[in-house]
């Protein structure tokens, strides 16, 4: 990687930070848990890093293989588990609009 590429990556890093701030600034309390759980799943993206480290190594030795193996397992657990549990949580909010009209009639 040359300096231009590196600086471009830094630019992307900074812009992503601002996007993160902008997108999340107005989230109702109700969704704090799913949001955290969702962002938790998204940082499971690190599994890609584990794949790249092992996948691009020429003739990886045993230590690297073991470390990468554990890293991929961990990363996969983070991603899969994170998205599944978030989906379960959000499904509970999903049915709301129909029952809302019934119980909140007097508002």
């Amino acid at each position, binding site marked *: *990687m040359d300096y231009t590429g*590196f600086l471009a*990556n830094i630019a992307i*890093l900074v812009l*992503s930070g*601002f996007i993160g*701030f902008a*997108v*999340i600034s107005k*989230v109702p*309390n*109700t*969704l*704090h*848990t*799913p*949001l955290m759980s*969702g*962002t*938790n799943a*998204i*940082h*499971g*993206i*690190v599994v*890609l*890093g*584990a*794949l*790249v*480290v*092992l*996948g*691009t190594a020429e003739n*990886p030795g045993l230590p690297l293989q073991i*470390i*990468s193996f*554990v*890293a*991929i*397992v*961990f990363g*996969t*657990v*983070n991603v*899969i*588990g*994170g998205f599944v*549990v978030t989906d379960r*949580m*959000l*499904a*509970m*909010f999903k*049915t*709301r*609009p129909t*029952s809302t009209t019934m*119980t*909140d009639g007097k508002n």
Partner: protein
Amino acid sequence: MDILVYALYIVAFAMFILGLSGLTAPRSAVRGNKIAAAGMAVAFVATLIHIRETSSWLIIIIALVVGVIIGIPPARKVKMTAVPQLVALFNGVGGGTVALIAWGEFIESDGFTGLHVASGPVLPLVIASLFAAIIGSLSFWGSIVAFMKLQQILPGHPLSVGRLQQPLNAILFLGAVVAAVIVGLGSVSTGADPVWFIAILVVAGILGVTTVLPIGGADMPVVISLLNALTGLSAAAAGLALNNIAMIVAGMIVGASGTILTNLMAKAMNRSILSIVAGGFGGGTKGAASASSGDQIAKSTSAADAAIKLAYANQVIVVPGYGLAVAQAQHAVKDMAKVLEARGIEVKYAIHPVAGRMPGHMNVLLAEADVSYDAMKEMDDINGEFSRTDVTIVIGANDVTNPAARTDPNSPIFGMPVLNVTESRSVIVLKRSMSSGFAGIENPLFFGANTTMLFGDAKKSVAQVTEELKAL
């Protein structure tokens, strides 16, 4: 092919951003999560294309299968009350991955000396990797401790070495940085001894443990949120080191959003993130606060009396807290609300931002019990309503209702925004016993003139009240 990989990464992170913005409203949240998950699948495929010539397919496939097998069952089966510890655990393994990636890179590049062969920025990449190693390891071990505290494998109350805690943490942090500098300097010549890299991981790990151990259960929403943000930042650093834009964008977004969420939580407790991480609630003032309450007597009540009070109310507000989660009383509460609503009584839920053990914990539990999200009110929206409320039922909540936070400048939680439950005409507090909350602070609410206590398991108490209501 590399262009294809890059293009797919761009598609992937666009989907992350789209999905995440969906998560900001209840109606679009399910779709948002699915979009983000689909984005993850795209990024994953792109990475497999990128490493298509690898000789390690077998290990990769086995690892992926093992990960799926371990990851899905707990996510599917976990009770909603146990979600905080599961999120902590998932967060921990993510941090662990980052630390291991950095370690793997260290080995693969012969102590980062391999990076010097290419022309380009070397030092920033080494720094990014070392940052990832420190924060990743800290986040892993910190999350494991948070998990054990929430799962009650470790006691929930603060565990610390007292005054020495902060100096100890500072020394550990310095130790990790020194080891990192040694590894960094080594990369210029022949590469540092691998022992130094392991030292980074170990010392940062110990720092993670000693940082989270002294933090009490009530502060856990802030801690989990903070650890989540840290894992995100370390993922971004690892992405920088690996020149992987999907990791940079995703990690940084998580880092930024996690920081906002952490800040919101800390604000809701009127404390700085730093003072929460520094551990304990006040500490020194604790003894003084508990000594002053000896002669006060709380009035206890029965389920039948509570039911009568409720039956003649116009508006009832339920204040849920961690005790509701422990007793798994959310369905019982919903049943009670149904009976009350059938009598034409309005039932609302007042949710303090830090009630429970993770941000929004109470909302998720009540949603599980089919409580309408329009009935769940945030603190600022409902605080004006208590004075118009006949009965407020406090279920397993303590510090978030403590009037001392508004009236007693000597209270350790003075200044923390609380729910003004004392303004309602009467308050019924459901509690297991008279013990003070996680923070160990006396709550004058329990001794208030219009407060009555209904002792016992929250779920059973609520069910009894419901039975009495039906019988009326």
